[in-house]
């Protein structure tokens, strides 16, 4: 069971306190979007063995959504950060680069 630190309340929360919310940093497509754009928004997800950005909610704690940068293969956590952003903070990207040179995720590297 994973442990993630909620960036809002500072609690290092056990997975039983959290609910997962799938991939982070999706761009919403609505009316006016092409069929392909909308299809990709609804269904296409990364499935990396390695660095991944996810959404979590501190459901049985403060109730806030946050993001986690995590390795799916080793379960290493590079950091958590508030959900009110469209891309990961630079310091987390730097930390990942230091630990995993050459990593990529969507258009991030």
């Amino acid at each position: 069971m994973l442990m993630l630190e909620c960036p809002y309340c500072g609690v290092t929360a056990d997975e039983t306190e959290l609910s997962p919310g799938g991939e982070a940093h999706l761009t919403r497509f609505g009316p006016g979007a092409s069929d392909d754009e909308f299809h990709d928004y609804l269904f296409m997800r990364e499935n990396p063995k390695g660095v991944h950005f996810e959404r979590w909610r501190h459901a049985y704690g403060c109730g806030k959504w946050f993001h986690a940068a995590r390795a799916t293969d080793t379960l290493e956590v590079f950091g958590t950060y508030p959900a009110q952003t469209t891309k990961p903070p630079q310091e987390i990207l730097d930390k990942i680069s230091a630990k995993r040179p050459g990593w990529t995720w969507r258009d991030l590297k």
Partner: protein
Amino acid sequence: MSTRLSTHGRLIDRSQTIKFTFNGKWMRGHPGDTLASALLANDQMLVGRSFKYHRPRGIVASGAEEPNALVNMGKGPTFEPNQRATTTELFDGLTATSQNHWPSLEFDVGEINASLSRFLPAGFYYKTFMYPRAFWKHVYEPFIRQSAGLGQAPKDRDADTYEHFYAFTDILVIGGGVAGLQAAKAAADSGAKVLLVEQSSAWGGRAMVDQVDSETVNDTPVDKFVEEITAELAAMPNVTMRLRMMGAGVYDHGYVLAYERLNDHQPDADGPRHRLWRIRAKQTITATGAIERPLSFAGNDVPGVMLASAVRDYVVNFGVSPGDRTVIATNNDDAYLTAIILKKAGLDVPRIIDARPEGGGALMEEAKALGIRVDLGRAIAKVKGSRRVTKVQICNQAGEGGVLDEVACDAVAMSGGWSPVVHLWSHCGGKLLWDEGHAMFRPDGDNPPRGASGEGFVRCAGIANGAMDLAAVIADAHEAGKAAAKEAGFTPKRSKAPAATSRADAALLPVWLMPQGAKTELRAKSWLDFQNDVKVTDVQLAAREGFESVEHTKRYTTLGMATDQGKLSNINGLAILSDALGQPIPATGTTTFRPPYTPISMGAIAGEARGEVFQPIRRTPMHDWHDANGADWEPVGHWRRPYAFVRPGESVEAAVMREVTNTRESIGLLDASTLGKLIVKGPDAGRFLDMLYTNMMSTLKPGRCRYGLMCTENGFLTDDGVVARIDEDTFLCHTTTGGADRIHAHMEEWLQTEWWDWKVYVANVTEQYAQVAVVGPKARKLLEKLGGMDVSADELPFMGWADGTIGGFACRVYRISFSGELSFEIAVKASDGQAFWDALMEAGSEFGIQPYGTECLHIMRAEKGFIMIGDETDGTVIPQDLGLDWAISKKKEDYLGKRAQERSHMTDPNRWKLVGLETVDGSVLPDGAYAVGPGKNANGQRNMIGRVTSTYHSPTLGRGIAMGLVQHGPDRMGEVLEFPGTDGKTYKAKIVSPIFYDPEGEKQNV
């Protein structure tokens, strides 16, 4: 025969005798015995039958790896099947029975299977039970049912109690042998908090049997060393020690489950029987030792053939000799210890059969000096005997099994080498290395399970880490303890590991089959998996049939799939597979190690969560009144709601019909408190609700209500309910009973993760209010009688709401109707709920007031053609399917689900659409029945063109009514469809409007 010796038995108390029964026969043992040692002391070697062939099976091992000695324990409420006799401590009055036999252990009808064994090869489940089809019912199914499963399921409710325990520690040490003790000491010396657990009832592990006479730590005999270090640890305030507690599983980020058996050995004691520990440890050390491997020779499953280490365990620990004349078969030095211990105990060891042409080291010389004959380069060709070993036939290991010699004996002690217990290391991703010298997998220290920091959080110590002699074990454990302490943030003491002696063993010879070139008839009697009856030939056949993956071979042959999870069989099995595939063992790899290490009780998993505390029940303020007034309860989410209020002597169905008629004709009262109530507030609240609902909510005027639909982003209808605008910035959104928490979370998700700059707050106030629906033609009369606010049609019109008082209760009244009748839904403070309900009931008696339940509500809404989330919707239905286009704003540019509802499949004219269904004969359509159309689909099945979503008997109309989704339904009014039922009958129903009652809405709008 097997019997109690007059010497040895370090774990038993000979001064006391206790009695127990096995298959109804009274036997005697001593405190400290396991059930297995006590059975052997009573010459009960035969303990069970194998799974497939029902072959007689005896005790093989002395610990958790035992595959055969599984028994039923206890009676009635304490009955439990599949208990391992080798890890069951004996207590006075224990009752055990053997499993998997009929009619008796000694004479088993199923044993006939054995003579049919060549018809039951690997994969026989897939091959044998195919054709002819007619055989299924009368031949195959009874056979499989009779053969499937071990033991019996308990029939009574478990009388014992269980609990969960949460523990946090710096370092967890699993295993209380010399390695675990030394690792715990080295870790604890740093000041770290240490939890040390041992699955058995004694500290010291194998060293107390194997090294106690011959070897030393710090020039102290091993038993003395164990005594001292145990006392030192017990005196340290930062150390917690637990016996009878097994590390069961290692999970992500340092989470470990451990299983403590508190009272299995003292069933009359107070307190829980088992305790499941949920541990968070910064570092975990697994000092879990090793398990000896059997050798694969013909007849290695005959009762009396045991692991060599188990034979000496029974002698040293329990003073029990498994046999009078024991032949040793080995490929390594370790088994010589057994010969030496047996000989010194005055027992006969007629022969040591060592597969190695050069034999062993110092231990071999010691055995020879005791006068034991050692045959080198030899193998067991075959063990003779059926219910007990009678003799062994000896051949050359290098040959095909030509018999050179025969030795009479009643036991065989075998050793194929040792496999470190790497299970816990592997559970969370620790990798393994193949150790060529010892022919075993051991942990790869460079690839441990990793925690959140990216560093390893498990390390192995001692034999579990591949350290094979005492000096290496102590040194390895010492370093592991210090390293774990450092990793956990402590400063280990500068100290050297205690010096220990080490045995100079000769090298082991990997022997996966005995003899090496064994003929088919021998291989077909060489067992790999004793419990599941998998032989060498089965694995070889699987390989010939193309099973190359070890995971596939496991499932095809069932190797390692029994309750022992292949603790004895796996390495031997994959060695045979590797040989058949012509590849080295590491290229084949192991199957996945999954928790728990050994089975743990369902009771321990459940803990306290049973009965009333299994799941908390949500109760409305009027719950107790309902209960006292005939409520037939129905679970709705975590709530309990009255399905109907049943009067004495009345059936539930009759109560429902009465409630509908009474509500339609005079007045009914519904406890609607469970409906979700979400306050949405802020300058952007209207804009936000416009995105959440398909309707336009921002144009709703304060004081008015609007029915709204909510969809998910993929267009499907997820919830519905009435929204009331309280003021410019505030809305109150009603949700379904089961939907309140989910919709609250849905709103929070969109607010926090997409529109975080919008100024809106959401609060779930569901439980702050009691809400009562006052429904029926006399509803207004009742409220006027109670007095207070003006509830006239002019002042409070349909779909309006107002704050005020009624009968002295401060309340908010919504003029909304889910029944089609004149209806007021009245919310009061939760604390006023019962008093308000009482006031309504009392004042309403002159109008014939009656409470009604959820089924009455359902019937009334179905009569009106109102949809119900979860009946008309199932996660694949969009509002357009339900004819709810009127509730979808055409003006809005966007709402959740709008783009999805434009996708081609969503606009397909062939989608099934909502209609009413009226049976031709007035009967009730079966719920969920499908309508069939002409022709067949690509699979040769009848085409389906619709299904029933809601179906009831309507007392108002005196007939069955239903709603359903039908292809082109609204264009097919009047058409009669056929619905085949599961009862063999075909129901005919006419497509009609879904609004059966008061289509103009005259009754609710008065």
